[in-house]
Structure formats: C-alpha cells, structure tokens
C-alpha cells in the first residue's frame, strides 16, 4: 500500500499562535491560511448568523489596510482569497505566487492585530449577507436542505440547534459593539493557527511568522459555552415546506460518535458503505434497484473539522408516487441489513482502498483547482486547534485501515438506531410546478 508522508514543521509563538509549515516546492505557489477556533456553533445567543457576518467584516478593513485593500492586494499579487465559517472554526485563506508570501502574512497579521471597520461597512456587509442567504437558501429549490433544516429538529442545545446563517432580525440587531467584542474575544493569536503550504522552506516560514505575528499581544483565553447535548432517547421528526421543487425530500441524521475513537473510524467506513457514490448501498438500493428515489446520498459533513455534536445524514429525493413512509421503509431496510449482517470482507477491502484514495485527493484538493492543498490546510488546522497534533495528517489513515468487520457491525448496531436519529421531511407545497404563472 502506497503511503504519503508529508513533511511538517510546527511551533507555537510566545503569544500562543500556532504555526504550521508544510513545504513543497513543486510549483511556485504558496497557500496561506489562518484558522480561528470559533465557528457558528458558539456564536452569541440572540446573534444567530453573527460568526458568518463577522467573517465578512474581516475583509472590510484593518489598521493599515483599509476597506478594499485586502482583496486588491491579494488579487494584484496574482492570487485568490476567500474565507468560510463552519461549525467550530472560521478560516481565511489565500493562494498566491510564492513571491507574495510576505505580503499575505503582513495582511493577515494586520487584521489579526486590529480590525478597523465602521457602521457603513457593517450595513454594507449585512446587505450582502442577506443576498447570500436569499441566493443560497430562500430563492433556491431545496435551499438549506438539510444543513439548516436539521439542527432545530435534531438538537436541544441552542449552540447546535439554531439558524447558522442567521435570522434577519438577529442580523439587523448586530452592531459595531458586537463586532469589536467578538473580535477581541475570539480573534486572538492564542486562539488561532497560521498555516503555510507549498513553496516555502520550513525555517523561512517560521521566521516570517515571527516577524509579522510575534508582537500581536495574546488575549485572555476565550470562553467557550458547553455545546454538549442531553442524551437522545427518542426519534425526532420535523417538517419543512419546499416552495419551489416538486419532489418530496427526506433527510435522516444519526448522532455521530466522539472524534478519534474506534467507533468514529468505523462510522467513517460505514458512511463510505452507505453513501460512497453509486456503489454506496443507499444509491444502489433506493435509486438503482428499487428505483423509489431519484437521488440518495449524504454522509458525515466535514469528518475532520467538527468539534461538537454532529450527525451522519442521508438525503433522499423520492418519486412522488411513493409515500414518504414507503420511502423511509426502504431506507430502513438498508440500515437493517447492515446492522444485522454487517459487511463482507470483500466490501470492506473495497471501502478501504476507496477511502485511502479519497484521503489523498482531500490532501491535494483544491477548490475548483484554484486553492491547492486546501484539504491539507484544513486537516492541519483542525488537528492543531482540536488536538494540538498536526502530524496526525500522516497517521490518521492508519485508524481507518485497521477497522475490522466486527467493529463496523458493532458501530452500526450502536449508532444506527431509531432513538438516535432525527428525520426532516421537506414537502413540496405544489404538487406540480406547471401551474399557471
């Protein structure tokens, strides 16, 4: 079995900032990322959507790089940039020709040191975010299904159950005081990791990190609300109207085991068995063989990137001539089969080869070919912030390759239970889209 050994250097500056460098001089390109350990899960109550709105504000100006300058300086260096907010982390990243590395570090340090934004910036980005929500959720068929539909049904702790994109009233209520308080609390060097991947030498990268970041003062250790859930003991169901689409859709989510346990590795392979493309049992049974559904897929959302309660979720869009109960029964038959009979040695071997292949692709993986090593960056960041162990990228695969048939079946029996799941029915309000306009 071919392995991949990625050279990694990491250190921690006196102010608590983690620094990770993964040199690779194959192309004259470097990817830079900063991850802050705060996502939408632990944003302030009464301020749903704030972590994401705040992410937008980080592009609105800092002490020495006023509004527009951040984007302009990266683009005009021949690079691309973006940021994203997820459950437990928020990231900012750039891919640039390697001669722009110092410039990018300067920009990231400047906005870590002092965000400089005003009411006009906030109003502007609040408007932009509302259009983002409209284009992705409110004006799209199946928008937000199931990532926004599932949490309020599945979870009881506000941290896990609220609207992560934000209720518009909450977005409207956010003011500059909130922005600066959030920045001061969570955007401190001791709550972040800086990553450099690609065309940079390890010692050079670490020296540059010190040059630009060492004088940023550490903050108080950020407070984190407890995201844990009361134990789930009953199946939960919820209903959401589908305004545009004509097919009924169902999402079924099962509670996931804690990270980096044997059960977690087994669930990842179970996920591959159930949702691994057209060979996956869900697609095979529901779409190809029984032909109840036109689409059946899903999985664990960001296996390496969550740090609190989450689920493995199946999404099924089924033909209108089948009832949702009949569809659910067909789904249940797939779950029953794997719980009762486990999987064969041959299937397990296939799953592991595919898993390894997918893992390599994740590490190299760009975003549309334009953000090289995005996946490696993401894993290094999460293993640093959650585990303080970036080297896990080189060893984590072993745990998955070691999973046995017995462990798979045991995990299926323990986790794929009705009392551990939540179901969302997304039901079209119109039976036929061909209504008169």
């Amino acid at each position, binding site marked *: 079995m*071919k392995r*991949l050994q990625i050279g990694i250097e990491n250190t921690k500056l006196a102010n608590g900032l983690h620094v990770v460098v993964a040199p690779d001089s*194959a192309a*004259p*390109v470097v990817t830079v990322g900063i991850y802050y350990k705060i996502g939408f899960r632990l944003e302030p109550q009464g301020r749903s959507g704030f972590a994401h709105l705040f992410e937008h504000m980080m592009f609105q100006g800092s002490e*020495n*790089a*006023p*509004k*527009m*300058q951040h*984007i*302009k300086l*990266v*683009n*005009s260096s*021949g*690079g*691309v*940039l973006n940021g994203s907010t997820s459950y437990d982390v928020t990231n900012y990243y750039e*891919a640039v*020709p390697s001669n*722009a*590395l110092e*410039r990018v570090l*300067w920009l990231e340090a400047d906005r870590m040191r002092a965000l400089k934004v005003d009411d006009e910036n906030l*109003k502007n980005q609040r*408007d*932009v975010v509302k*259009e*983002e929500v*409209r*284009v992705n959720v409110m*004006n799209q*068929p199946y928008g937000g299904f199931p990532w926004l539909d599932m949490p309020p049904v599945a979870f009881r702790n506000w941290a896990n159950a609220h609207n992560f994109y934000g209720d518009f009233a909450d977005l409207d209520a956010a003011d500059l005081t909130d922005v600066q308080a959030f920045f001061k609390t969570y955007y401190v060097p001791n709550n972040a990791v800086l990553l450099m991947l690609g065309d940079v030498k390890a010692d050079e990268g670490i020296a540059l990190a010190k040059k630009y970041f060492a004088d940023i003062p550490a903050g108080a250790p950020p407070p984190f609300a407890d995201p844990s859930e009361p134990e789930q003991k009953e199946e939960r169901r919820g209903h959401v109207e589908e305004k*545009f689409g*004509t097919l009924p859709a169902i999402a079924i989510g099962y509670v996931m085991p804690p990270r980096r346990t044997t059960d977690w590795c087994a669930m990842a392979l179970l996920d591959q068995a159930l949702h*691994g493309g*057209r*060979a996956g049992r869900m697609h*095979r049974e529901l779409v*190809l063989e029984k*032909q109840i559904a*036109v*689409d059946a897929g899903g999985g664990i959302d960001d296996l390496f990137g969550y740090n609190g309660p989450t689920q493995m979720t199946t999404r099924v*869009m089924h033909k209108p001539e089948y009832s949702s109960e009949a569809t659910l029964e067909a789904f249940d038959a797939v779950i029953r089969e794997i719980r009762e009979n486990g999987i064969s040695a041959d299937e397990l*071997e296939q799953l592991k*080869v595919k898993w*390894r*292949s997918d893992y*390599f*692709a994740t*590490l*190299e993986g760009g975003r549309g*070919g*334009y953000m*090289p*090593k995005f996946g490696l960056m993401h894993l290094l960041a999460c293993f640093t912030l959650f585990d303080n162990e970036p080297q896990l990228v080189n060893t984590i695969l072993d745990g998955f390759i070691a999973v046995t048939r017995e462990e798979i079946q045991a995990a299926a029996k323990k986790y794929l239970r009705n009392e551990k799941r939540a179901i969302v029915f997304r039901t079209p309000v119109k039976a036929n*889209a061909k209504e008169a*306009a």
Partner: protein
Amino acid sequence: MATSAVEVAVGVPALSSERAVTWPKRTRARLSNGLEVILAEAHSIPKFHGELFFRSGNAAVAGRAPGLAEMTATVVRTGTAKRASRQIEEDLRRIGADLSSGAGADTSAISFAGLSEFAEPLLGLVNELAREASFPNGEFERERRQKLEEVKLERTQPGFLASERLRKVLFGAHPYGQVSPSEEQVAAYKREDLQTVYREFYTPENGILLLVGDFDSNEMLKSAEKVFGNWAGKKPDSKPSAAPANPRGRRVYLVHVPGAVQTQILAGCHAITRKHPDWVKLGLTNSLYGGAFNSRLVMNIREDKGYTYSPRSGVSAMRQHGYFSVSAAVRNDVVAASLTEIFYEMDKLRSVPVPEPELADAQNYLSGVFSIGLATQDGLLSQLSTVALNELPDDYLETYRQRVRALTPQDLLATARKYLDSANMQIVVVGDRAQIGEQAALFGEVEIYDGQGARLS
C-alpha cells in the same frame, strides 16, 4: 468609489522576485488508430487524473433531439458487454477510482481519477465503456426517468431559467440556443438513438486521451497503447450549423417567478471563441470588469452598494461561437439600480482608458491565477484540456503570461468597445413581474415568459 476618497494600504511589503513558472513537459502521441494521447507528470499525490474526450457533443445531434449526447454519456457507464452496472461501480471502488461521463455542447467525455497503482485496470474499464457499452434497457429507462425529474427541477432554479433564456435569445435556432431538453423531448428519447450516437461519436479518430499524474510518461504511454491500441473507428461527419443572427438593440426578457424574494439578472452579447486572436485581450478586459473579486463591478455593486452577494462576468466559449455575460442575484427593489451600474461600468471601460496601475494589477492577477493551476493534478489537466480541445498552439501555456503582460490601456479600450457591446446587450431578469416589471421596462422593450418557457406577453 463614490463614497470616499481612495485609501491605500500603508507599509505593504513589496513582492520578492518571482520564481520561474515551468509547465511540465507534455508527451504527445497519436496511436495508429488515430487516438491522440497527451500525458504530463505531476507527482503531488500517488494518483492520476484522466479524460477521454470525443470531439462531438449535444450540438452535433441537436437536430435529432436536444441533450441526446448527454443522455448517451449518462447511459454509457451503466453496463458493458462484460459488466453489469453494479459490477462497474464496485470495480471502480475496488481500485479507489472515481468516474463520470457527460457531454457538453461540443464534446462527450469520460472523466476519471484513481490510484496510480491501479492505472491499468482503470484504463481498461474506461476502454470498455468507450467501446463496449451495452445500453441495458432497464438502465436506460431508469436514467430517462431521472433525467425527467432533473429537467423539472432545473425549471425551479433561477440561474437555470436565466441562462436558458439568454442562450435562446443569443443563438436562436442554432444548437447553442437550447441548453436543455424539455420533458416531452426526454420522454421521446429512444435507446436505439443513443446507440447510434455512441457508434458515431465514440471512436479513436474522434478522441483525445489526456492523462496527468503520478506516473512515468513512457510507461503510461505503453499502457495506453496496450489498452486502446486495437480500437478502430472513423471520425463522424460533421457540418457546422448556420451562424446565428446577432441580436441588435437592448431588449429585456423577464422570466416570471411568482413570489421570488430576489431577482436573478443575466445580460449578454455575442463574443468570440478560444481560438480568436483577441481571446487574451478579452480575458483581461473581463477580469477588470467583473471577472475577479477586485474587479470594478464587484467593488461597485457588492462592496460599495450591497445590492448582491454574487456579481460576476465571464466569457463563455463554445467551439463555433462565444458570448460575454454578466450576472448578479439582487434585491428586488434594486434591479434597475443594479442594471444602471452594470451598464455604467461597461460604458466606462468603453470610453476611458484603464489607468496603468489598475491595468498592472489586473495583469498580475490573471497571470498569477493562471499558474496556480500548476499545483494540482486536476488543475493541470483542465489547462491541458483547454489547449487540446481548442487546438491552441503548443506553447500556449508557456506564452500566456507574457501575452497578458504585453497589453496596453489602448488594447483594452479597443477590446471593450468591440466586445462589451453595451448597446446590444440582451437582458434577462428572473423574478416576480409585479415587483420588477416596471424597473425592467426602463432598459428596453420587455417580453415576459413563464418558468416553462411560454410567452406571457
């Protein structure tokens, strides 16, 4: 921006000297059966990516049925003389591979990626799909039903409705004018029609095999010869369709979606193909206008005015024709305001030369981003595909940056005047007519359609 004086950053580190961009050597061969093979090594991960292209797509058979090449490609992966659908999927998983098949306007393709250690079995399966697809009747019926649901779903997506209408307006009866089949057309697909398309299109003389990844090119070429060498087949006859009329004068096409909480704007005009000598000029002009985050349009209607999250402009090139377009999903009450800015920025580029520093920034952007494709196997593959399919010169990748950097403000002014054809833009707005009808009418005569494509007024 109108709101404040331009502020600059203070203390920005200068760029250090640039490392040379070296594109990997390409190994090219033409097998005795006519199949063109292009290989490039990229050792970032122990995998490889490939595409088997055929130079014929939906446009070539639009006269028989729209989307027929796409449907053919979809069914190709569902069975061969040797393997049933389930076997194909499990065999792919067994070697850690992903595979998809599809067709665009001008090409059909089998795309794949897998572990280098299993390169030969993967090529073997691709070969089998390209030569021995059996079009099982049950699979055909199932895929046709799924396609039916897919075309219904498309009609609920504002982005689809906008692009469908724009393509109809720009290309009329030309095959490029139809982006997707109707439900009735899908229902009328016949298995035999797919098999005919398959026999005509999927031949070595019509094909290009591209492979990029962690392998030795000489060894890989030998494998390709071994696997594909004894395949035979001619290039299909093809005759280009009559050129579409270029619509003159601004007109507005409103696709009415009752209750829409946002309006999708898409405006476009005829432009050029990838082979056209002005391609790089138009690419740079587009990048300044709305093709980059730092572009004028994004700064204006997103970062200054907050009308939209997702403004964008681009040049879409098919083999025979291309078009320039600009899009934004905006708040319902700022449709007219957004269109005003869209045209303002276009007209400004058409009348005032771009300041040198802004030009330099855009040149750096375009040449830098071009090279980022080097760093991943699929990024490199996509660059090589573009060169091969458009029959661009061999040194296209190597000379692209210098051609971008040689352009002047006068070149861009001339390019904008030629291709950002503001006076003849065809404007599509997808939204609720009660909320946006009056705003839309400010920009030209309005035709109104429903989501099914029927003219309402």
